[in-house]
């Protein structure tokens, strides 16, 4: 039996076509409607409500909490202010990424770490000899992501918190219609949005309050399909899709460093010792062998491949997650790991790993596409990520 999120009693009645999927051992909705179009549209036009409870969540407290986390992650925890959130990867000693997630500093000695994969053992291995308590809150906390241009208006109807002062990547404790919550100005959509962390016992009243306050603003419960399209547009990577954890990869070639998955910006050059520091310093000096970039597939070329069969171009309304080879001048120079039709940009997009020196923005490449059972190549251009970056995201 897969686990059920604390919001399951509400979400399960909404999944009209029984489109469920697994996410970190949970049974979660792919979409509530048979198709995700409206759920996706809400992310970019109104507000979408995602149940993101399957994220692993750890509360790390004590005198050495900051020390532990500074050893763990690639960003400088000594610079993380109370009420601030980092998005960060963390690595093994060889500098290969283990996982990525957010780290919130709730007070001087209290942190909350989220991760895609279970981090219990890794946290304890790193905490040896430190005065620190690690609590797994994964099942005790429910999490919702309220994402979209009207997310702020909806929360404002429920909370005494001055949301104008809760800046991008900041977190605060407050109440939503009297329910004790933590609210962070974060998300996985590249849009204006919040994530809300609540005791599982209060999950249902919180869901109801958000739906009620959100209805006049067009709130739409949304599932993983809509989230997937939004995160690709936002150029956000996904564990086990775009990269593999160094702890799970069966072969060395499947591991990536932060520089190789476009997270080089999150590797501190000046901080104290941390996992992978030496390897990453060396890589910084010599330059990464791989780049993780966006690909924009040229529509006329894509359309021509279909027109040869008298077909209109096929556009899936769900993002794809299969590996597609990428070529330049006839040789394979990398592979795309996920992609989608972007309804807001009206473009075919993909996220791809490309070998040096082929990943400079503007480079013309070709990506494999299957057209009428035949493997063809469509023209594509390398783009810097994110593809979609509205001002309101940080405003």
């Amino acid at each position, binding site marked *: 039996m897969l686990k059920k999120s604390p919001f399951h009693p509400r979400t399960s009645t909404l999944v009209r*076509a029984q489109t469920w999927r697994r996410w970190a051992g949970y049974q979660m909705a792919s979409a509530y*409607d*048979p*198709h995700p*179009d*409206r759920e996706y*549209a809400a992310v*970019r*036009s*109104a507000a979408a409500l995602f149940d993101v409870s399957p994220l692993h969540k750890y509360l790390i407290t004590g005198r050495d909490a900051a020390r532990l986390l500074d050893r763990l992650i690639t960003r400088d925890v000594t610079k993380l202010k109370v009420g601030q959130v980092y998005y960060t990867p963390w690595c093994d000693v060889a500098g290969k990424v283990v996982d990525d997630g957010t780290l919130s500093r709730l007070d001087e000695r209290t942190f909350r770490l989220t991760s895609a994969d279970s981090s219990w053992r890794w946290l304890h291995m790193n905490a040896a000899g430190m005065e620190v308590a690690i609590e797994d809150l994964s099942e005790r906390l429910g999490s919702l992501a309220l994402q979209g241009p*009207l997310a702020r*208006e909806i929360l404002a109807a429920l909370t005494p918190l001055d949301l104008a002062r809760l800046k991008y990547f900041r977190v605060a404790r407050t109440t939503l219609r009297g329910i004790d919550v933590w609210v962070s100005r974060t998300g996985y959509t590249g849009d204006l949005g919040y994530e809300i962390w609540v005791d599982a016992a209060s999950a249902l009243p919180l869901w109801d309050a958000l739906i009620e306050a959100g209805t*006049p*603003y*067009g709130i739409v419960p949304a599932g993983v399909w809509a989230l997937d399209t939004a995160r690709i547009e936002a150029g956000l990577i996904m564990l086990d899709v775009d990269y593999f954890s160094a702890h799970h990869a069966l072969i060395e070639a499947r591991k990536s460093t932060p520089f190789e998955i476009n997270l080089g910006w999150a590797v501190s050059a000046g901080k104290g010792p941390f996992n992978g520091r030496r390897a990453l310093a060396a890589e910084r000096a010599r330059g990464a062998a791989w780049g993780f970039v966006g690909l924009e597939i040229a*529509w006329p070329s894509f359309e021509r491949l279909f027109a040869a069969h*008298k077909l*209109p*171009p*096929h*556009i899936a309304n769900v993002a794809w997650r299969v590996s597609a080879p990428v070529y330049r001048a006839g040789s394979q120079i990398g592979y795309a790991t996920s992609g989608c*039709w972007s*309804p*807001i*940009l*009206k*473009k075919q997009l993909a996220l791809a790993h490309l070998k040096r020196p082929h990943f400079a923005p503007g480079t013309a490449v070709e990506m494999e596409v299957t057209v009428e059972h035949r493997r063809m190549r469509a023209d594509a251009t390398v783009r810097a990520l994110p593809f979609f970056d509205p001002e309101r995201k940080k405003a």
Partner: protein
Amino acid sequence: MSAERYDAIVVGGGHNGLVAAAYLARAGRKTLVLEKRPLVGGAAVTEEVFPGFKFSVFSYVVSLLRPEIVRELDLPRHGLQILPLESTVTPLDNGDYLAGWADPDETREELRRHSPHDADAAVAFGRLMHHMAMAVKPILEMIPPDPTSLSPGDLRGLLKLGKHFRSLGQEHFHALHKLMTMSSADYLDEWFEFDPLKATKSASGIIGTFLGPRSPGSAYVLLHHYMGEIDGAFRAWGFQKGGTGAISEAIAGAARHFGARIRTDAPVGRVLVKNGRATGVALTSGEEIAASLVLSGLDPRLTFTRLVEPRELPEDLVEGVRRYKFRGSSGKVNLALSGLPDFTCLPGRGPHLRGAVSISPSLEYLERAYDDAKYGAFSRRPYMDCILPSMIDPGMAPPGQHVMSIFVQYAPYELEGGWSEAKREAFGDAVVETLSRYAPNLPSLILHRQVLTPADIETITGLSEGNIFQGELALQQLFFLRPVPRWARYRTPIEGYWQCGAGTHPGGGIMGASGRLAALEILQRPR
């Protein structure tokens, strides 16, 4: 004469004029758009008619906008954002309803409830319409060649067209021919048996046209509404975030990005012509602006008889334009509502409120609505296409309140005795009264009502006789005959004076193809 001189001036900031300007500017031409109203868009405008309530005042949904324009002008970057319009619900007189939902399986089951035959036929019909849209697509992207001409350009076009038609195969070519000539009701009779389904589908065949569903030629108008393409899916209709004005703003944004200048509140009085050549324009204010090219985005009547002296033109052209049919047949009612209408057939809040509600209970209902119009009255029981934009884009109305957009047909431009304020209100009353038969709480929700007759559409936008397509989509005024024979390739007899509005091929709807093709034709010629 003002000191500034332009390569091209576009008269009229409707969406086609803006598209033409954007393409010219993109090619490096110094371009100016002159719009008489304080905002661009023509019939694709969003206005806050009532405080807090925004309306797509005239044109209200989008499907036909050419994907190549979206791509080439990168309109998403300038604000194009199309939201899904999910369903069409037709309330029936027996209290039941007919629905087309977002999901094809749900739609098929819904149809099966009314007619198992039609449920299957709809799938086959959809397949044929797909082929028809594929068949028409290259024509939409083509500068129309004249079959009687021997010029190399025309011959090349004809050859391309001939090859294309041959490639369609017999079955599809014959189907296309039938669609070009039949009435939509006759055509649909060949496919379906459930009358409300035929009525609802045939409604696409009368929109913007002074024809009934049983009038020959209406099947083409039906096809015209099937050839839209959103995200690669034919026949998909959507709602632009912020209303249709935001589409115009996006195109204007692209035009400005490429360097075009856009002046609003700048009505053009006439095009300056010297020795048979356009030399610029004169605003009604008296200001004159020089340009090497002048493009008119206005309809053929204004283009050929208002902006220039008809004596500059050959008599057969003037005569052709005089005979060109406008015959505006539709009106628009925009309502600000304090809450949601409650439809008797589908009570409460449901997905139907995020789609279209079509008042088309039977073919006879539509044909009778046309009968009223034939004899000079507005329909007492009109065809209506209603949407609640605020249910799709909550920004259109204050939270919890709503806007309702009602396309109404028939409202003849040539009303017996002419349109007056009293008749406009009586028309608005007929609309609300008819709708309230299906949603009884509607009258109690109305905070504000804007009623637009074809005469109002003409007064506000300039569209002659209030025709939303700049002239009917009738076979005798399509393709190489649009607007008139010999002058279908966007040019005019006046050197340097061009047409780029929907009165040229392929015409009507927020399509932009006329503006793009006109610009491409201009850019093909040596400077």
